[in-house]
Each structure stands twice: as structure tokens, then as C-alpha cells.
């Protein structure tokens, strides 16, 4: 019996995998510096990387960056949680019930045509300028991609597997837990990756509509003071936040879906 274990990457290959992105980043920063110097770009239009780095150190040491990042992170995580839970619950219902789908789908699709940036001020009026309106705006942006992926994931379960569960006298809960959830997870987690990055955008849209703190506020205030370097620091902080969230979902995906790779190995070992 052959046993084909998944191939291990060599140390050199793994190092190359890390070095290439770092090298790309270095080239980008050098090109940016060259562009600023050769183009004689004024700092209020495009600050040099060094100026952005110095500003990042200043706002980190004086606590400004942490204060704003923390607020945005709360809004992002709150929005992601609220949007995900709501989308998954509704998505499962729509996937399993034609009647619910026919009743709700037109309104859900139509609601996606409304630009969140246009209704953000209304949400601030209705729910106040505090954190909740930002969490809500973030949740609204996250909702649709996770909803769509939930529906697709639940419907992707082959009907013969449902038949198998029925033939084994599985309860509704057992079918949900042992069949539908594992089968839908790959598609669902793909939607969560998209939602994770969109939640950051939603939080910033909410902050720009009215907030006292958050990275969106930091960027807006810096813009009003023509401190373009500080604007860049805010934008970079948002990028890092989005990448971290994406990475976290990616890690979750690898852990939760380990059984897929193991199952593929056992399957291969039969031949």
C-alpha cells in the first residue's frame, strides 16, 4: 500500500517565500523615495517614506496611534461579529427555505444597491455618534458577501449526503452539525475573508460620518492640518489591520479545515 504524504517544503523554499515579499516591499519603498526626490514632490502632496516612518514613531510614542487604532478595532470586530452572525443565520434560513428566499431576497438584493456612505449620516442620526452606529455600518458592509457565501455553502451539500443522513436516522441538529456545517465551511470561510477586510472599510466610513476617535478620524483630522505624513500612517495602520484580520481568518481556515487535507491523504493512500 502506497502512502503519499504531503510534500514538505525545504527550508530554502520557505525562506524564499518570505524573502520575496520583503524584497518587493523594499523595492516599492525605494521607488517611492526616488519618486519623491526626483520629482521634488512637496511633503503636503506626497511625503517621503522616511517622513512617514518618523511620523509613525511620533504618533506611536505619544499614544495617538494606539488610541485611534483601538477604537477602530472595536468597531471592526463588533461589525464583523454582528454582520457575520446575522448573515449566517439569515443565509442558512434562505438556503433551506424557498418561501423565506422568495420573501426576503428581493429586499436584501435591493438594499445592496444603497451606498453605505450615503446612509451613514442617517445611521449616525438614528443611533447616535457613539460606537454602535460605526459597528452597525461595518456590519452592513460585511453582511452581503457572508450571506451569499453562506447560501452557496449550505446549498453546495450534495443531496445524496442528506439522503445518507436520513437513512441513518440523523436528527435535524445532527445533520446540521455533522454534515451541513463541515460541508459549507470552505465557502463560508472564503466569504469571511472578504468580510474581514470590508469590515475595516465600514468602520472608517462610519467614523467619517461622525466620530470622536478612530483611524478614520485620525486621517480626517490630519488632512485638515495638511499633515499628509500622519494621513499615511493612518492608512498604513488600516492596511495592517485588514491584513491581520485576513491572516487570522486564513489561519482559522487552515485549522478548521485540516480534515480536508488529512482526508485527501488517506484517500490517496488507498491506491
Amino acid at each position, binding site marked *: 500500500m502506497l502512502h503519499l504524504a504531503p510534500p514538505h517544503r525545504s527550508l530554502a523554499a520557505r525562506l524564499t517565500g518570505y524573502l520575496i515579499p520583503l524584497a518587493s516591499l523594499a523595492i516599492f519603498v525605494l521607488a517611492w523615495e526616488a519618486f519623491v526626490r526626483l520629482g521634488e514632490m*512637496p511633503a503636503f502632496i506626497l511625503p517621503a517614506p522616511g517622513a512617514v516612518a518618523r511620523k509613525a514613531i511620533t504618533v506611536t510614542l505619544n499614544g495617538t496611534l494606539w488610541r485611534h487604532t483601538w477604537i477602530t478595532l472595536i468597531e471592526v470586530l463588533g461589525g464583523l461579529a454582528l454582520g457575520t452572525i446575522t448573515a449566517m443565520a439569515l443565509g442558512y434560513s434562505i438556503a433551506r427555505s424557498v418561501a423565506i428566499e422568495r420573501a426576503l431576497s428581493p429586499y436584501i438584493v435591493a438594499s445592496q444597491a444603497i451606498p453605505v456612505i450615503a446612509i451613514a449620516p442617517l445611521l449616525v442620526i438614528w443611533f447616535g455618534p457613539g460606537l454602535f452606529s460605526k459597528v452597525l455600518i461595518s456590519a452592513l458592509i460585511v453582511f452581503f458577501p457572508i450571506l451569499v457565501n453562506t447560501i452557496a455553502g449550505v446549498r453546495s451539500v450534495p443531496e445524496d449526503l442528506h439522503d445518507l443522513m436520513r437513512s441513518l436516522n440523523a436528527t435535524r441538529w445532527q445533520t446540521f452539525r455533522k454534515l451541513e456545517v463541515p460541508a459549507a465551511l470552505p465557502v463560508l470561510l472564503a466569504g469571511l475573508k472578504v468580510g474581514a477586510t470590508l469590515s475595516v472599510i465600514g468602520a472608517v466610513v462610519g467614523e467619517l460620518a461622525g466620530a470622536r476617535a478612530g483611524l478614520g478620524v485620525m486621517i480626517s483630522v490630519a488632512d485638515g492640518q495638511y499633515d499628509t505624513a500622519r494621513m499615511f500612517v493612518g492608512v498604513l495602520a488600516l492596511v495592517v489591520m485588514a491584513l491581520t484580520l485576513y491572516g487570522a481568518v486564513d489561519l482559522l481556515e487552515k485549522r478548521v479545515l485540516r480534515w480536508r487535507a488529512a482526508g485527501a491523504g488517506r484517500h490517496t493512500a488507498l491506491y
Partner: protein
Amino acid sequence: MTRTPTLILVALAAALLLGACEPTYTPEQQLGQVESFTMYMGFRPDVQFAPFYVGLEKGFFREEGLEITLEHASESDMVRLVGTGEAPFAVVSGEQVLLSRAQGVPIVYVFQWYQRFPVAVAARGDLGITTPADLAGHSVGTPMLEGASYIGLEALLGSAGLTDADIDLQVTGFTQVETLVTGRVEAVVIYASNEPVQLDAQGVDYTLINVADYANLVSNGIITSEKLIAENPDLVRRMAAAFAKAVAYTIENPDEAYSISAKYVEGLDDPGVQAAQKTVLARSIDLWRAERLGASQLEGWETMQEVLLTMGLLDVPQDLSAAYTDAFLP
């Protein structure tokens, strides 16, 4: 038909065609003096920009050889456009000049349009808030934590020895009227010529504190770049002259100015909004009046700089003589 009449007809047609292709120049264009450019103003078309509409319709800009196209953008964008030479002029508030110059943006304020700072605080009528000191302990909403509204609020608080710590500061976005009416805050920072009209229309009981009664701050005016002043001072002079005529005409003829503005601002001809919008124009005009239109006062710049230094938005005092000039006024 013989060939001669045909040739004459062809020659005539050719002459007519050539004549149609030949551009028609105004006297200013023949002298090579017509300047075409985009004039930037804040936010969106509004009756408060009436002098620009009047200037276009009455030909004040054309008389000075200026062919302008109106555009709208945020203040910070407009400052950057003028500072980089992408646009020759824009309308911004005075604090933008000091803040941007501190970051190396080479702009100069050349025409003070608003002679009174237009920011005010409107408070719920039942609270009895009539002076800046009365704001202590109350919730106050500001649209954002930058710009003329916030700086005006800080100046108002400062006049009573107060700071943000003495009030419950809320950031409402540009939803001040709704936020006050729904009771989310007890007072809001507004434009004295605009939001009170909306509050009156809704029958809201409120008190008003004008920043201009407690602090003389530089408000909206026309900026240009140091480069344009050096390379084409005549253009700056012509712009100032044209705009002064436009402002003066608007002040003297508000009804006609409103009718003209209706051609440029969607909805002004709606009978449902006319009364309110005419009031907005009238109150705006009150903020523009001056013995010499366009003239700045050093006191206003000094007070503005003091407020910005106290707020920590400026690290060191600026050379105010480089930030503004009345040299181009008619």
C-alpha cells in the same frame, strides 16, 4: 450655367467657410489677456455662493478678462490644488491658510469675503445658554474635529476660559439640526446664516451664540499661490476687482442675486424653499458687508493664530504678513 458665376459662388462659399472657422475674439482676447480657469469653492452649489453666480451672469468676470468655470471640492483639496499651481484661486476659511502654510503650502489669502466669522452655537431654548460660559457641563455637537466649525467652538470656549474638558463634546457629522432636534445633544456648532433658518422653519426653540461676538477670526476668502502672485500679479488684481464688483452687486440687489443663483443651484426655484433660502442669502450678506470689500484685519489673523497655537494645531507663530495681503484689492 457659365463657369464664371460658378467660380464666384465657390469663392464666396470658401470665404464664408473660412470666416466661420476664424475665431471671434473679444478685445481682451485680441490683446491676449483672457484667462480661463476653474474657480474652486467648498462643498456644493449653494445660494451662499451667490456673488460667483452674479459675477458670471452680470459679466463682472468677463469685463476683467476672466473666463471661469465653477467647481466644488473639500477645503483641504482646494488648498493643495492652489498650492501646487493646479488651480489659481479657491475660496477657503482663514485657518486653512495658517494651517497649510505651517506645512509648507505656499498659498496667500488675497480677498477677505466674509467680514464676520459665520460659526455659531445653537442651544436648546429651555437651557438658558446665552453666553460661552453657560456651555460648561453641557453636551455640544460639532460636525468634525477640524475646520472652521471646531476652531470656532474652541475660540468660543476659550473666550470664557473653557476647554473641551469642560463640555461633553460629541462629533455629529453634518447632521447638526437633526441631532439637536432629536435631543442627542444640548447644543450644536452651526453656520449662523444657515442652520438657524432651518431651526426657525421647524419651530424649534433655541438660543444662539455667535463666535464673532466673542472672537474676531478670519473667515472665508479667496486664496492664491505665491507663485501666481510672483508670475502674474495682474491676474490676481483682476480676480479681486471682479469679485469685489460681484459681492457689491449682490449686497445691493439680493432679490436679483437670488434669481440668478437659481440658475446655478438646483431647487432654489422651488416655492417650498424660496423663503428659507432667501433668508439664508440675506443673513450671508450681513456677514459680507464692509467699508472696503475684501480688506483683512490684522486682529483677525492674530486672534486666529492664537487660537490655533492654544489648540496645538500650530507649533510656532507664523509670519502673518506673508499669509495675507490687501495689495490686490481695488
